[in-house]
């Protein structure tokens, strides 16, 4: 009986001391002066659904999930938004996680339209920014967010209709991404988000 008790205690200690798997930093990296320098997402300046400016400082001290979308998208975006809402529901009480949904339709997705869209999704949370901006800038920034997710790096574009969700940490590093149309891949992504949030609490 005593031996069994010891085994139980030992097993509990082992299971409790299991470390959370640290997520890798994705993207290009190079060694400069003996120090590894990782890809960082570039600067951006957008306007959100309430007409407020959104820049990297909006997410200071926060991790955030990025996706590119447009409100009139008939096929991919509704599927992605459904999955993204699942992620949001799971982590909505965590202030260390924000959301950045960038519209690529600069012609029709005005601030009012983005507000309408956020309302339609029942998102009334300052942590989720639906943004628009200057067209060339939106596409330039996309390259910095999505370069890790493009399967074929010789083919420019495509990110505006491939439904990826990208996880950026508070140091501007990309830590995970998934196919936002695939519920199984999104499940895996949610575990990565959880790991990142846990890793930062340790």
């Amino acid at each position, binding site marked *: 009986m005593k031996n069994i008790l010891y085994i139980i205690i030992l097993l509990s200690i082992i299971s409790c001391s299991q470390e959370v798997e640290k997520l890798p930093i994705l993207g290009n990296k190079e060694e400069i002066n003996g120090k590894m320098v990782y890809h960082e997402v570039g600067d951006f300046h957008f306007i959100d659904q309430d007409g407020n400016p959104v820049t990297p400082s909006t997410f200071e001290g926060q991790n955030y999930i990025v996706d590119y979308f*447009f409100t*009139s*998208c*008939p*096929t*991919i975006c509704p599927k992605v938004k459904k999955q993204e809402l699942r992620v949001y529901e799971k982590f909505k009480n965590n202030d260390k996680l924000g959301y950045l949904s960038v519209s*690529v*339709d600069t*012609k*029709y997705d005005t601030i009012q339209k983005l507000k309408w869209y956020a309302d339609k999704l029942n998102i009334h949370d300052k942590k989720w920014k639906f943004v628009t901006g200057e*067209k*060339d800038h939106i*596409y330039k920034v*996309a390259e910095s967010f999505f370069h890790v997710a493009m399967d074929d790096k010789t*083919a*420019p*574009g*495509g*990110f*505006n*209709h*491939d439904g990826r969700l990208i996880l950026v940490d508070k140091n501007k590093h990309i830590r995970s991404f998934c196919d936002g149309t695939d519920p199984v891949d999104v499940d895996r992504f949610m575990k990565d988000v959880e790991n990142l949030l846990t890793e930062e609490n340790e």
Partner: protein
Amino acid sequence: MRILILFVLSIFISCAQPTTQKAPSVAWQNQLDKVMEVHDEVMPFTAEIVNLNKQLKNFQATHTDLSKEIIVKLEDTQNQLTKAEEGMWDWMHGFVQPSDADDVKKANLYLANEQKKIQAISENMKTSMKAAKQLISELKQK
């Protein structure tokens, strides 16, 4: 008694017969899928169009010694790209997916018309991209 059983049985059989009228969503779903197939194929090209347009714009901005002929060609190609891209945004903005409440015949007619529109948009996008790539290649050789 036998007649009564046969009568009740015949009612059950007639009720279980599948209706020849399909549910509306099924009746136009194939047509809708065809429209969206074209859309999904060319939609990712919008990013490439923006990229090509930017390359042409930059070329024009950084070369002050261009001939009138080249300038016209550059501007025409940029306009063609812009028009092709905008065509897709305009189409998506105007497109309304039929609902189950709609008349099936009308829904199919609407979708057949949308099929023609999206096909034309697809052609415009591909043609404008081809022309832009060709021009960029020509300009690089000069």
